[in-house]
């Protein structure tokens, strides 16, 4: 999955019938899998109800296609969750380049830096 910020909504009147009434969110990813995918936006199906400005997790590829319950849907990305909080441990980024990439990057609104290596175990919600 990819972490990104929802920056807008895409409206379309003429579309593939399998897309039905699915809402399309315009997401700007904070990080990509690979630099070759380096465009700064992504259109994702939103069934969670994200709003502009929220951080979202986007699921790509075949698993994302199942979001609509139909594998024939022309979908490649779907919003899987709305993020409350992102924590990155400063210590875990030993490489200067990774630190630099994160400093230069468009950073999550929900980001909090932590110092520790481990986290409280039972915070899963």
């Amino acid at each position, binding site marked *: 999955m990819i972490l990104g910020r929802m920056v807008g909504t895409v409206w379309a009147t003429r579309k593939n019938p399998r897309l039905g009434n699915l809402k399309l969110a315009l997401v700007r990813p904070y990080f990509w*899998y690979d630099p070759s995918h380096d465009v700064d936006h992504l259109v994702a199906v939103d069934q969670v109800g994200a709003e502009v400005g929220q951080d979202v997790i986007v*699921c790509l*590829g*075949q698993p994302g296609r199942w979001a609509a319950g139909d594998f024939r849907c022309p979908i490649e990305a*779907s919003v899987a969750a709305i993020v409350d909080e992102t924590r990155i441990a400063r210590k*875990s980024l*030993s*490489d200067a*380049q*990774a630190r630099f990439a994160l400093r230069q990057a468009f950073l999550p609104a929900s980001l909090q830096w932590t110092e520790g290596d481990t986290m409280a175990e039972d915070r899963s919600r």
Partner: protein
Amino acid sequence: MMLARVIGEVWATRKSPRMEGRKLLLVAALRKGQDAAMEPTGQVVVAIDTIGARIGHTVAVAWGSGARAVLAPPDNRSVLADAAVARIVDAVTLGNDDQPEYLE
């Protein structure tokens, strides 16, 4: 699969029902650094965790449809995840058995 280091965690309350109850980790892909160690790069991905990986662990991450195979059937069919922590890595070596190069 790809080697990655766990660098953080993501908390989400509102999520798709197909992702309910999954712990989410931020993992950064690794590449070989200059001093015989694997270094995290700026390629950061959100992966689900089923085996209790913690921040600082080196992990192997399964991608795409393969991520669902990390979960036990039958509930893995509909899971909404394209990256999952498949194992926690103890050691990595490069090269042949005669002259292995140990990476951290």
